[in-house]
């Protein structure tokens, strides 16, 4: 790659500095503008009657009493929307064999999960709409439900979709080397375990929210969206509401968290858009917390049988996994619900040099809420299975858990290389990260503390994980399979007449600080104070085309586009300055908002003066000079399907063996996300991710009854991790920039969530080891620990 690498050390270089978020004050003062803050003239409100049953035929729907209620404008069933919305199907062609039936925004003839929207009410207020929902009469005939993924493929399991012969959605196998031969070797020790990962969901502070306006005079639909992929939503809504893509505008202002939850096609959102189009009036739909639990996508829900063979020196001889996952009744559109299973097959054991690897994934339909991509897709499962087996194996052969990793992690000089599953790796630092972690946490002292504590009947445990994270995906992730999801991102940078920069970018801000790093990169590369940079994101009408912020791609892909555009604009400005100053543009630079002599640093003209000449007094320029004070660049990853990052994490826990309670005493993470643009923001990302990982490991679970009723759909019963229970989370970095870009940044958004569950699980099992028991089911609740201990 070529480029001005010195830009990281120049004045106005903000890359690598903990610049405060320019929007922090606004948000803290409560001046954020979220979807629910919108009050439009003539706006109506939507509420949905949702199926109370996991599986039921829908008979007669009587909405007469509901529509008679004063203030109710309309009631829609699936039939009413059939002419206005075309069905969508959650498949991707590169996930060969994946099947899912066509889906409509409201249930057609049969409801397939408790919480599926069946009838939409539009009224003058949400309260009236909810009153009307209670008056809708639906003749449900309940059917036997298929809830347990383990029995979904049995001959006697109720088949959820009549057009399919079974509840199978997808299957994939990976087979590298000769697994059977390796397991049969005389010199290997084999560990076999079953791991269970409960369903959980990403609980966003701001729920899913839509305000949709439709102007029939121009056939323009404007969708105010709380989410992370505006251009994808534009394509999806245009296609299924039969509008021209350019006539659909998606606007995402402030977004109160997304975590992958708000990046999918939800029936209630599509129905809201359809109703806005039918009625020609703005409609607001804000999912309430109960609706969020029963309709926001869930994630995980995997049972993985894994076995690992190691030789006497601890070298991995073979790894085999069999993953079973239930995804609800449909594959989610347009990203599909097979990706998490696919990731698990791709990533299990990926940090380690393994010759013999076999993996099988089975994805089944079931009568539960739909499952799809949530922060760190597949990673927590893949890392927990591989590193759970590895630590068990280490103990079985009497080897230290750090040593066994040293023996098996890819060497830092091994790159570029491929994993057993075929993942392409470059610029990773597993060994260095592990050594840094061991020192950082003072591993030896912790082991000593553990031994001493055990003499007092205090059970402490230390658990580690070495991990990879998929970041900066190329078109190989979704685009190749036919999804309207851009893998490239763009940025436009414009100099105004006052000497300020305006950056418009296709990546999105949902609370992680995207807008901050855009300003940092642009100000630094171009040469102005960061206060003089204004950033626009989240509007399909005013930003370049791009994918948005997901899969830890914002900084790495969108950031590079900002860098390239800012660099290009700088050259354009210097060309104009050369003419004005009668100087050679190569000998000029931009520093602190001024064009300066590159060598002496003498200020020659301010950007404000230059802007005024160009914009107001063009007569002072030669006629053949046509200044362009705007530059746009796009960037995509071309050399690799994904740019992987790596990290090493550790947890220190104490298990109260009388109560089964786990206290996380400390957590450490050493992360290599390449070039760190803003250390504080990266640390926040990792900390937040670790907390969500601890949530999955110890607290969060969507608990279903055997007949498919979600039993804890409230914030009182669904336990998100809270500050009081969280440990100090210590973070350190290694910076191995990716060679795929000038910026060198990889992603950091999902590492914590991907790695923490494995470290916690290993630490708990390390604490339990003297009691000769272990637990491989998440969340590791007090009751499950007590049961593992045989106390209840």
């Amino acid at each position, binding site marked *: 790659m070529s480029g001005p690498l010195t830009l990281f050390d120049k004045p106005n270089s903000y890359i690598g500095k903990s610049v405060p978020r320019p929007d922090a004050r606004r948000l803290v003062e409560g001046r954020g503008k979220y979807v629910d803050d919108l009050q439009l003239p003539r706006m109506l409100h939507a509420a949905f009657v949702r199926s109370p049953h996991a599986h039921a035929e829908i008979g007669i729907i009587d909405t007469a009493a509901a529509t008679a209620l004063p203030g109710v404008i309309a009631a829609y069933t699936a039939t009413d929307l059939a002419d206005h919305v075309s069905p969508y199907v959650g498949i991707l062609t590169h996930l060969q064999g994946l099947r899912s039936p066509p889906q409509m925004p409201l249930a057609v003839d049969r409801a397939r999960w408790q919480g599926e929207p069946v009838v939409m009410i539009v009224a003058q207020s949400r309260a009236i709409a909810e*009153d009307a929902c209670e008056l809708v009469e639906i003749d449900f005939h309940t059917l036997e439900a298929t809830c347990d993924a383990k029995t979904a493929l049995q001959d006697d399991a109720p088949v959820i979709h009549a057009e399919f012969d079974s509840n199978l959605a997808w299957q994939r196998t990976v087979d590298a080397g000769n697994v059977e031969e390796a397991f049969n070797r005389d010199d290997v020790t084999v560990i076999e375990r079953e791991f269970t990962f409960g369903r959980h969901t990403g609980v966003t502070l701001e729920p899913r929210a839509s305000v949709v306006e439709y102007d029939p005079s121009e056939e323009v639909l404007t969708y105010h969206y709380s989410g992370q992929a505006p251009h994808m939503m534009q394509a999806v809504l245009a296609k299924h509401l039969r509008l021209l893509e350019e006539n659909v505008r998606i606007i995402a202002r402030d977004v109160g968290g997304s975590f992958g939850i708000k990046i999918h096609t939800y029936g209630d959102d599509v129905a809201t858009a359809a109703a806005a189009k039918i009625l020609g009036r703005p409609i607001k739909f804000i999912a309430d917390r109960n609706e969020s639990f029963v309709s926001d996508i869930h994630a995980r829900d995997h049972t993985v049988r894994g076995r690992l063979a190691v030789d006497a020196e601890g070298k991995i001889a073979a790894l085999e996994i069999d993953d079973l996952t239930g995804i609800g009744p449909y594959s989610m559109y347009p990203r599909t619900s097979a990706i998490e299973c696919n990731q698990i097959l791709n990533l299990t054991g990926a940090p380690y040099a393994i010759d013999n690897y076999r993996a099988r994934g089975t994805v089944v339909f079931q009568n539960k809420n739909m499952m799809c991509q949530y922060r760190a897709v597949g990673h927590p499962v893949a890392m927990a299975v591989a590193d759970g087996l590895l630590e068990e194996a280490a103990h079985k052969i009497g080897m230290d858990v750090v040593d066994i990793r040293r023996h098996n992690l890819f060497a830092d000089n091994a790159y570029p290389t491929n994993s057993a599953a075929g993942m392409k790796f470059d610029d990773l630092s597993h060994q260095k990260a592990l050594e840094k972690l061991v020192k950082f946490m003072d591993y030896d002292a912790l082991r000593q503390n553990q031994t001493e504590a055990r003499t007092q009947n205090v059970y402490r445990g230390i658990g580690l994980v070495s991990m990879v994270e998929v970041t900066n995906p190329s078109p190989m992730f979704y685009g190749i399979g036919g999804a309207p999801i851009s893998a490239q991102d763009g940025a436009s940078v414009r100099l105004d007449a006052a000497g300020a920069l305006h950056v418009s970018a296709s990546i999105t801000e949902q609370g992680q600080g995207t807008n901050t790093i855009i300003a940092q990169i642009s100000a630094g590369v171009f040469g102005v104070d960061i206060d003089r940079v204004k950033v626009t994101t989240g509007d399909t009408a005013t930003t370049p085309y791009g994918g948005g912020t997901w899969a830890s791609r914002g900084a790495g892909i969108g950031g590079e586009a900002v860098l390239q555009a800012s660099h290009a604009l700088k050259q354009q400005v210097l060309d104009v300055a050369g003419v004005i100053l009668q100087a050679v543009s190569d000998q000029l630079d931009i520093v602190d908002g001024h064009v300066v002599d590159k060598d002496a640093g003498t200020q020659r003209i301010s950007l404000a003066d230059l802007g005024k000449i160009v914009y107001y007094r063009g007569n002072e320029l030669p006629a053949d000079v046509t200044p362009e004070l705007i530059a746009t660049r796009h960037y995509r990853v071309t050399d690799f399907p994904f740019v992987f990052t790596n990290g090493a994490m550790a947890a220190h826990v104490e298990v109260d063996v009388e109560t089964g309670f786990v206290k996380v005493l400390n957590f450490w993470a050493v992360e290599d996300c390449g070039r760190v643009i803003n250390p504080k923001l990266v640390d926040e990302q990792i900390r937040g991710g670790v907390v969500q990982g601890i949530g999955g490991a110890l607290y969060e679970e969507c608990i279903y009854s055997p007949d498919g009723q979600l039993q804890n759909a409230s914030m009182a019963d669904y336990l998100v991790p809270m500050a009081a229970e969280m440990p100090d989370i210590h973070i350190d970095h290694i910076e191995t920039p990716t060679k795929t870009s000038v910026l060198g940044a990889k992603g950091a958004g999902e590492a914590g969530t991907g790695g923490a569950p494995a470290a916690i699980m290993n630490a708990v099992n390390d604490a339990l080891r003297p009691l000769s028991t272990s637990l491989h089911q998440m969340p590791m609740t007090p009751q499950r620990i007590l049961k593992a201990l045989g106390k*209840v």
Partner: protein
Amino acid sequence: MKAADFDYQRPSNLEAALDLLDDESGDVQVLAGGQSLMPMMNFRLAQPELLVDLNGLEDLQFIREADGHIQIGSMTRYCELENSPLIQQHVPLFSKALPHIAHVAIRNRGTIGGSTALADPAAEMPALLIALDAIIVARSRHGERSIKAAEFFLGLYETALEMGELIASISIPISEAGCECGFYELARRHGDYAMAGVAITVQTTNPISEARVVFFAVSDRATRTEAVENQLNGVSTLAGEEMKNAMEEIGKLDFHGDLNADIATKQHLAKVVFKRAIAEIFS
């Protein structure tokens, strides 16, 4: 998640409130701190026709000492109990337990009367009142009556309050010299409803007497267990045979499971919280 329509009245004195409650024609609910009722209304699990808001009743907001008791107005908020020198001095069990009741924001609004009237089996307050041998003073248009806490909580969300009655105040005997108290609960996260909990008061002058042991979050109501108390009364410390008997008696309680703990887990944890509370008292 919007409440169904309801009428709303905010009386400015107790008599006016009692007049509003004395209405058998409709479903009247009393709003105290609203920390349970408001979510129940928004979930439409509660759909009162009339909501009588007691937050304007200053005559129900007091903490005072009288006749060897601490009298607490039913609209006294948890945070006021926490910060009250009278409570700190005379009702040490409250001081131990209050920090475990939900979170600061909830304790700023939640009231002692509201929690008592709701009778949530997992809540701390009913157990505390039984352990303290408190008197609940109920008022209606037709008069006033005093109900012993031990006879007040009748079952899941069920109390001895009758139609037209509300809790006016709660009266707690001042803790005597030598009286010790213990409190222990196990909650998944700080502030959650407990998986199991216990409140104990006991006269520790040798031999032990007047033990009151009340479990919560294990059954359909806060549950006092005299069989366990009998193991404590008359001994100098709870150990050996008596502790073994106490464990056996705890195992006989009418346990009800929930999402976090099935019956076997509740049984086990009830024993653990009891042992820990006792250890704290006698340490």
